[in-house]
């Protein structure tokens, strides 16, 4: 689940939670140029797809903007 308010997703039991940009534009940023906006969105969506290949012990947060793929656990 891609979410800007990722805490909800974690506490309601989504196993793979990907940090999105903002509530009003979860997978994009209208302040960027169209090319950079596309790349930004692709980074989030690609990260989300990649998490499907990762085994998780429970609700887990992935941050596409962080250097590592896995940022924090819900607990």
């Amino acid at each position, binding site marked *: 689940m891609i979410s*800007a*308010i*990722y*805490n*909800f997703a974690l*506490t309601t039991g989504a196993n793979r939670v990907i*940090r999105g*940009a*903002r*509530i*009003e534009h979860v997978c994009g940023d209208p302040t960027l140029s169209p090319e950079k906006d596309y790349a930004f969105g692709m980074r989030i969506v690609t990260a989300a797809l990649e998490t499907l290949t990762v085994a998780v012990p429970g609700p887990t947060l992935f941050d596409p903007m962080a250097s590592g793929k896995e940022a924090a656990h819900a607990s």
Partner: protein
Amino acid sequence: MRLEMGTFPVKDVVFGNATRYDAGRLTVDREAILAAVKQDPRIASAELEVARPGESVRIWPVRDVIEPRVKVEGPGVCYPGICGRDIATVGRGRTHRLAGMGVVEVSSVNWHDAGGDFVETHLDMAGPYAEMYPYQKLINLCLVVEPDRTLNEEVKNYAVHNAALTVSDQLAEAVRSLTPPEREVFELTPVDPSLPRVVYIWCVHSPQAMSGSPSAFCTATYGLTQLTPPWYLHPNEILDGALTGPYRTAFAMSWTVANNPLFLDLYRRHGRDWNFLGVISLRTEWTTQTEKQLMANQTAKLAQQLGAQGAVVTWDAGGNEFIEVVRSIQACERLGIKTVFLTSEDDATDGAPTMLEPLPEADAIVSTSFFKNVTLAVPETPAVARVIGLPTKIVRRGSTIGLHGGVDGVALPASGPLPPPWRYDDHYGFGSLSCIE
């Protein structure tokens, strides 16, 4: 900061040749007031009608209800900043108010053009639905106003609200030089240092994220509606209208903000039951987790710097805005500030919590019942003899109860049976509904 509030109770409103107040009777010069409203070239049409308690009258669409107030002594104007009014700091001197009445802003103008957020409130003056709201006890002078259709939505909003404020100003002006029948002095005087120090954390919605505009019309602080860090307001500023409505529910109008019973009780019991420190006003609907947590942290820090030992918390919105509200409570509790939260609840479908993020620190909660009229099983509001405003209402997310159960997006005659608005949501404890234990 000392403010004397002079109250002029209004027992009747009639139309006449000059606007004047005499022993509870407010005479309104309809033509002169409408002429003042129509001086604004943005206004295409305007009418005034009176709705009295107990009448078979429905007012639709209701955007705001305003209590007429005027600054008699001291700097600034009442309802400062909004619609380009003076932004001098208010709260000193003397203010006069017309109590027991409201100026109702009736217009087809929607909050903004981003969709998904519609004006939904209709008010009745009689019947069980009417009795759920404070307005059916008021004499309501309704301004039915439409702006120039060619204007953009934001300009239309400010035009029709400015028109309602013009009416409010003209009425309040009639009592400027009169001796008020009732007087009350509001001041945060030094008190017994052993009294507990209490702050009111008053959370209000910002339309910025939903509308995409930092200046979209909505609940305002000195006219500002954008997302801003928490404000520290002297309670007298609020008595002079520095915090105004409206937002989308009938309980988030300017009238309800000005007459918030929780706020007034906190202030009136200052020096007797506690030491009231004032109001921290937190803007809500920040749109990242980080911003929400930052506002919560800063709100709690401000409360701590003010020396608060306790905080009372309210909010006027729903959904994700719960995060910055409940996390402010958590942050306060972690700093040793005891909190009480006044809130409505969602329904508990499939055993879901009635609050979006139930944190253990929020352990003292006063419920004002469910926020949805459908959960409260509020029946359809019955047909009325007269409608002030528009002849049809497009029902959004209608109640499942009654003749029009489950309708959505359907236009119904405004004078016939109507589902209640989707939201009830008593933000400040005007009613007596609460939770089911």
